[in-house]
């Protein structure tokens, strides 16, 4: 099982010259990948819990979008209900996605902590914290995109209402 661990947790620093020849630390997040040959049940569970939430939210959002697409294919696209439903999917993507990301960071942190040598205390650097938060922005971005499409549909509803009164 592979686990990402802060290099400092393993006592590896570039300055100390303790990096094996041919290897180098990631300049972005100062993390190294550690291969655990025989992880405990707890670590396996943490690995699953860290990996599952975001794909689960992604699958749920895709499922909601598929249901939305089916419903508008059966009926009309430019309805107030279709616009509201799409906006709701966007809100779900943004909120549940960020929640899932927080879960992922928490469980991955616990996993990383559990994989360190017992006599080492790892303190993440500011750069590693910032770089680990970057992917969290994808979820609000996805939610905003869906919200924008919902707004387009809402304006389409208004336009259709307007055109229905044209003879």
């Amino acid at each position: 099982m592979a686990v990402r661990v802060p290099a400092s947790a393993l006592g590896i620093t570039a300055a100390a010259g303790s990096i094996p020849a041919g290897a180098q630390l990631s300049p972005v997040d100062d993390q190294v990948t550690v291969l655990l040959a025989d992880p405990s049940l707890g670590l396996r569970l943490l690995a699953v819990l860290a990996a599952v939430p975001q794909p689960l939210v992604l699958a749920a959002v895709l499922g909601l979008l598929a249901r939305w697409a089916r419903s508008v294919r059966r009926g009309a696209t430019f309805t107030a209900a279709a616009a509201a439903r799409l906006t709701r999917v966007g809100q779900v993507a943004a909120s549940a996605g960020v929640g899932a990301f927080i879960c992922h960071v928490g469980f991955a942190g616990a996993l990383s902590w559990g994989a360190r040598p017992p006599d080492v205390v790892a303190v993440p650097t500011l750069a590693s914290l910032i770089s680990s938060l970057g992917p969290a922005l994808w979820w609000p971005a996805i939610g905003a995109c869906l919200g924008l499409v919902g707004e387009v549909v809402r304006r389409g509803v208004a336009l259709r209402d307007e055109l229905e009164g044209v003879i």
Partner: protein
Amino acid sequence: MPPDEEHRIRVNIDRLVAERGMTLTQLAERVGITQANLSVLKNGRARAIRFSTLTALCEALSCTPGDLLSLEES
């Protein structure tokens, strides 16, 4: 203009149809619109009228847009 705002345009379809001895059904057929839409137009509930519809109405009723539409006094 907000959709629900009152307007003062009168559509004189009833008078013109009566003067020409036509029925609304015949007019709707000649113009190529539904009776429901003709009724909406006649009762001033339409939000707008296409130039093509206005042209067809004028041709069917042998009149000008000025005969068909008038402005009510406020």
